[in-house]
């Protein structure tokens, strides 16, 4: 009995340790060995990792049919049933790459991003602050990007031959109808939104996605920050005013309040202004930002900002000594509420509503123009991850526009102009990655504008081809529509959409953190642009969609942060050839805001010892065409070339556990007396000649000092 038991026990224990050995090799589809692959029997601890030759071997005490599994990051999971009672001598495992990996191809044609984690990134969010010529304006920083015009008398983004109205700004996927402060004659404007609110900026200069409509030339996409990381109090003291902000962070939410006051009077006292200011710019603004994260990781973002501004100045009109008195008082309230969450792991959605309300009063001598505009947009979009490498996005938007303008002339006569528009849009877009190296993005957008009672259909297509580890080719094609501007719709609604067709080809090599090169060529045609002649009261008359035009050019971008330690610079060159017939142009001509050659260099050098960054920005552009009504030819005169050197210095120091910055910048250090363009007097003199009035920058040299404290 005893011996039987012992034998039985020995038998049992030997059974328990009956080992089967499994071995083999792991290779890619092209036959290269993959090291580090995890090969194991499903539901057991038993397994091994492949070595540098892709070879693996392990033993197991399991028996029968088992599932052999191999997993490795960036590859699809491999599985096969094996019978351990008759183990295969050698298992060959071929792993297939997954398509959606971080280093997969991305469509980049026409998009220039300033974001942390984007392949299209050529800038980083902080660059907007530290670019010498930008003075903390997102739009001005984007003007150092290829494809834009230097035109500093405007201040808005002028992209690839397009007028300022052809660029649309989006915040968190919702339109920002008034991204700039009001533009008055001869004085440049700037962007309304503080760069500190955004962690990502995507500047699309052509060929953009079907998600965006109502922009003929360009879309600027601003993505706001998520929940604030901690409590902060900030005080900014600037030579143009002051600002205060307070941020409070809770477990799942954060709230920031800020307010500012600006007054340019001291500048006009110290510096010689080219403009005869009667009342230099005075403005106040207030902003509330709220963030809330739900339990399911959904994020609610709320942003409301309001501002009020007032200014008046005298500008020569070539008629009398006093000149033209321009005054502007305006207030704007912008709000943006968005929510994003997922229905399931594969399906996510975004929903939001934004609104802009603006009351603007412009005075031209004794005439008064009061404009009230309301813009409300609601948007809904869904993103499906259909399968590995296939994504489908679709959505709708409704944009309501109500416009009312009262023109009160010097005799007290009032003319009222208004219109209401409901724009309904829908889009569907697929993104298909055939492999890690080839991607296409076909899309279709449709819109209906009630004011003109017209439909449009816009197909878009983009593709990208990876040519190396960090290089790729990209191309895009698309139709783009835009409802005519309010200035025309208030007079005439029997109009059609203005239209542009884009073709973009792009090559990119390198990485933004080291060295990056981008070259883009584009060809664009314009159709149905609004044309008119000046009629009664100097208002446009005979409005038609009779204009057309073209723009083609090459944009080059080079950034290098590696060659010299601590030194980071980028160089941009843009060549453009463009002509169009629009507005009151008698014939096709190059518009007055176009320089054929634009060149800029932006450099930054960090001096560790004094924790200070020194920066410069140099921009030069050849002369711009302007019209001299004293000659028969239209737009045949050219201004002198433009150039500007701006310098800045940011000294970083520490208060408590927060960074503070002392900032100094000087624009146009060399004091070039740039005559940007010429404006003819409205009335001819006794000899029948029109006087040409040069338009210059407000201040020849602009010095800005700011102390930004946070604690």
């Amino acid at each position: 009995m005893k011996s039987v038991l012992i034998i039985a026990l020995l038998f049992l224990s030997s059974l328990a340790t009956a080992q089967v050995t499994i071995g083999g090799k792991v290779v890619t589809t092209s036959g290269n060995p993959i090291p580090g692959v995890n090969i194991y029997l499903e539901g057991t601890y038993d397994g091994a990792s492949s070595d540098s030759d892709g070879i693996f071997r392990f033993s197991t005490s399991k028996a029968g049919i088992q599932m052999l599994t191999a997993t490795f990051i960036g590859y699809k999971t491999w599985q096969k049933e094996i019978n351990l009672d008759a183990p295969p001598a050698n298992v060959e495992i071929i792993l297939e790459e997954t398509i959606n990996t971080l280093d997969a191809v991305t469509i980049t044609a026409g998009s220039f991003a300033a974001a942390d984690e984007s392949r299209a990134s050529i800038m980083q969010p902080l660059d907007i602050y530290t670019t010498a010529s930008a003075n903390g304006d997102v739009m001005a920083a984007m003007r150092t990007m290829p494809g834009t015009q230097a035109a500093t008398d405007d201040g808005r983004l002028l992209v690839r031959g397009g007028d300022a109205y052809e660029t649309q700004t989006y915040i968190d996927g919702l339109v920002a109808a008034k991204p700039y402060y009001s533009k008055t004659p001869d004085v440049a404007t700037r962007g309304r939104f503080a760069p500190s609110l955004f962690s990502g900026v995507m500047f699309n200069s052509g060929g953009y996605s079907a998600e965006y409509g109502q922009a003929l030339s360009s879309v600027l996409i601003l993505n706001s920050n998520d929940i604030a990381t901690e409590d902060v109090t900030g005080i900014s003291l600037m030579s143009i005013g002051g600002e205060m902000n307070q941020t409070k962070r809770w477990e799942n939410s954060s709230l920031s309040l800020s307010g500012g006051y600006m007054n340019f009077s001291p500048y006009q006292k110290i510096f010689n202004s080219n403009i005869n200011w009667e009342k230099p710019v005075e403005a106040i603004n207030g902003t509330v930002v709220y963030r809330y994260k739900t339990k399911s990781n959904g994020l609610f973002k709320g942003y409301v900002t309001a501002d009020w501004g007032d200014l008046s100045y005298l500008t020569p009109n070539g008629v009398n000594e006093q000149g033209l008195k321009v005054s502007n008082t305006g207030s704007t309230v912008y709000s943006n509420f968005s929510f994003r969450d997922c229905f399931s792991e594969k399906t996510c959605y975004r929903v939001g509503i934004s609104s802009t309300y603006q009351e603007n009063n412009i005075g031209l001598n004794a005439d008064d123009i009061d404009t009230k505009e309301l813009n409300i947009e609601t948007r809904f979009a869904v993103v499906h991850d259909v399968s590995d490498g296939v994504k489908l996005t679709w959505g709708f938007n409704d944009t309501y526009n109500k416009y009312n303008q009262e023109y009160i002339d010097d005799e007290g006569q009032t003319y009222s102009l208004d219109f209401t528009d409901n724009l309904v849009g829908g889009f569907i877009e697929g993104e298909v990655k055939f492999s890690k190296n080839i991607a296409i993005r076909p899309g279709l957008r449709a819109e209906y504008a009630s004011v003109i009672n017209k439909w449009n259909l816009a197909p878009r297509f983009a593709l990208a081809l990876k040519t190396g580890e960090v290089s790729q080719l990209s191309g895009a094609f698309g139709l783009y529509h835009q409802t005519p501007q309010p200035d025309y719709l208030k007079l005439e609604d029997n109009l059609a959409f203005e239209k542009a067709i884009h073709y973009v080809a792009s090559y990119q090599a390198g990485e933004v953190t080291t060295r990056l090169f981008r070259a883009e060529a584009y060809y664009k045609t314009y159709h149905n642009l609004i044309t008119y002649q000046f009629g009664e009261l100097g208002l446009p008359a005979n409005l038609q969609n009779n204009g057309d035009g073209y723009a083609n050019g090459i944009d080059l971008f080079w950034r290098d942060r590696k060659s010299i330690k601590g030194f980071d610079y980028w160089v941009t060159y843009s060549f453009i050839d463009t002509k169009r017939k629009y507005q009151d142009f008698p014939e096709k001509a190059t518009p007055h805001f176009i320089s054929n050659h634009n060149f800029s260099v932006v450099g930054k050098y960090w001096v560790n010892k004094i924790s200070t960054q020194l920066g410069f920005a140099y921009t030069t552009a050849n002369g711009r065409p302007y019209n001299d009504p004293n000659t028969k030819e239209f737009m045949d005169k050219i201004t002198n070339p433009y150039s500007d050197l701006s310098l800045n210095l940011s000294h970083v120091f520490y208060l408590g556990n927060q960074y503070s910055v002392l900032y100094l910048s000087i624009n146009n250090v060399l004091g070039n007396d740039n005559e940007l363009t010429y404006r003819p007097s409205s009335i001819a003199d006794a000899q029948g000649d029109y006087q040409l009035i040069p338009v210059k920058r407000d201040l020849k040299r602009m010095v800005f000092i700011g102390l930004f404290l946070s604690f």
Partner: protein
Amino acid sequence: MKYLLLSLFLAALTSNAFPSEYEEVMAANIEKMYQSTTAQELTNLANQFQRIANVEKDKWEPVYYTAYCHVRVIFFAKLSSKETHKQLDQAQKQIDALFQMAKKEPEVYILQALVYQLRITDPTKGYKYSKLSNEALTKAEKLDADNPRIYYLRGSNTFHTPKMFGGGKEKAKPLLQKAADIFETQKAVNRLAPTWGSHHNNELLKQCLAEKE
């Protein structure tokens, strides 16, 4: 008597009163991990922990050590910044899973803080990731103020932050000292609990002390 012994022996094979296979295997691999100094050994161990995690779906430790092995590779292999981030992406994937299964475990937040700190591959990333790391450590402190790794990581980040940005050895010293004191006196709660950090903490503390003289 012999039957009794035999039945005891058989009982031991299946009983939970004795260390389970899970605990045995984990403890052995954890010990191996602390002795491993090559990327290959650590990757193999990460795979081993991953295999255990696949089976023991209700235990957070195997997932934790999978992530930590991926992180530990960075200490021993010479990686480019791109490779470092790739390695950290792998760890992050595990940490994201940990947040789902062990929300109340301070070690998870501490590991998250370590991953954030290692993402500072150049000075421009310092601001963002220092903030995120501090946020994670604050959460860990709320869950367990006596965990030495909280003060070790705070001290280490302060140590590597330039003086003008509020860092420096002088400011790091009390934090590292506090960590060292706890490391010395505290006993591990169980044999699977993380114990890393004391060696590097002492190294940094030594440098801080040398500075003064």
